[in-house]
């Protein structure tokens, strides 16, 4: 049971609206997003329910959910939402709030998703470009699942789908500096 009562100020709603540029109060719970979303069945709460949670100020529950980590930003839902809500932007907003405020969902699946993204970003940081084979390998090492997808590798290599060497951005320094500066900016914006 959830107990509701006087809510002086729904700061969670305000924060999400501000960050996403959407107005979650517009949602009238039609569920069109839910049946549109290709991954709603993997989510703890599908988009429609997330909207309702935000409206009710259920911050912790919403931020701890895995939903926004599964969102593929495919924009299928927002293209169909009759109330024109930018749902992926809302998902992105709560994802960022969850990171900032340390609410991130702790399940293995979400961890793996985050690991992947971190590897990706590291890769780009190092080389300025990404490189699939290496990413795959690193992912497997980090998630302790050495043989995942490895059956694909020989065939892919053989067919030239994946190459062993890879290209770098020449001015790699510039990229690394960008990372540092973006990070600094992020922090200054918060503080």
């Amino acid at each position, binding site marked *: 049971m959830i107990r509701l009562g006087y809510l002086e100020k729904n700061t969670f709603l305000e924060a999400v609206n501000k960050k996403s540029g959407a107005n979650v109060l517009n949602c009238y719970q039609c569920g069109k997003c839910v049946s549109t979303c*290709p*991954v709603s069945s*993997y989510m703890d709460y599908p988009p429609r329910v997330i909207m309702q949670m935000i409206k009710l100020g259920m911050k912790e529950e919403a931020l701890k959910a895995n939903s926004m*980590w*599964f969102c*593929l*930003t*495919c*924009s*299928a839902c*927002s*293209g169909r939402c009759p109330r024109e809500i930018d749902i992926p932007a809302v998902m*992105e907003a709560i994802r*960022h709030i969850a990171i900032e405020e340390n609410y991130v969902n702790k399940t293995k*699946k979400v961890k*793996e*998703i*985050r*690991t*992947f*993204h*971190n590897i*990706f*970003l590291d890769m*780009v940081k190092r080389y*300025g*470009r*990404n*490189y*699939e*084979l290496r*990413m*795959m390998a690193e*992912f497997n090492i980090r998630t302790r699942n050495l043989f*995942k*997808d490895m059956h*694909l590798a020989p*065939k*892919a290599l053989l*067919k*030239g*789908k*994946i*190459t062993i060497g*890879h*290209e770098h*951005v*020449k*001015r790699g320094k*510039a*990229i690394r*500096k*960008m*990372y540092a*500066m*973006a*990070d600094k*900016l*992020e922090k200054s*914006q918060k503080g």
Partner: protein
Amino acid sequence: MTKLTYFPGCSAHGTSEEFDHTLKLVMKTLNVELEEIPDWNCCGATSAHVMTENLALSLPLRNLVLAEKLENNTMGIACASCYSRMKSTKKYMDEHPDKAKELTSSVIDEGEYTGKVEIKSMLQFCYEEVGVEKIKSLVKKSLSGLKVACYYGCLLTRPKGVTQFDSPEYPMSMDRIMEALGATAVDFDYKTECCGASFSISRTEVVHLLTGKILEMAKEAGADLIVVACPLCQSNLDMRQPDIEKHLGKKIGIPVMYFTQLMALAFGYPEKELKLSKHIVPVEEALSNIGKVVETPQQPTKTKKAVPSAESEAK
């Protein structure tokens, strides 16, 4: 000769070499010179925007700034994912010039951003700038007999406010190009369903489910092969197909080709230029349909016979 700024994206020289290669052949025939952005970097697709705000904007923005240094007004992007990131960043920067200034001055060290370069996907470029008529006129070998299902994925046409291209629900541009080449484009209701590309590595089971459905529907629609315009779509649909078949417990065996490969073929390039050996699901059988007669699906006759006509009643 028209010049076009070109952003190949990270896959072009890896998984999607055949795309890159055939794209260049096609552009040669179309008399378009591709000018690659010097020292471009990864646009951060699939990951940056998930994790951080400023980095998600800065990675594409650096490319936009570099692109402005070339003289061309338009930039063509091969990968749908890169296209989406770059175009939405451009839209954001055009609407928030202050943010652009902040990032170009404090994060990226490559100069100013003015927003003068238009962004198009290569598909969009072929459809809008070249045009179906021109493509048709250049066909040397008609692809008649070949039935294709055009798969656009989510990011080429969505969100509408960003891409400003074709329909987000049932686009037809690639279908029209295929028809111009002589092929038959089948009705395909899963054209824009997401294939889950960004979970390709981290949540493979999701990809299996989503991609499996797309492949099945293409088969159901009677296509000999699927045509795509994005390397991520291609590798998900092609490379993972054997796994999906295992997962579904049935054979699908539908090859997945780039629209540029088929354009190159129709423009008269020999098959070996298409780099068909790179495909995991073999394409040769599908291509052997070229030249065969296709029976067009019977248009069911109207309700006529089943019902008394209104005319007889009007008497």
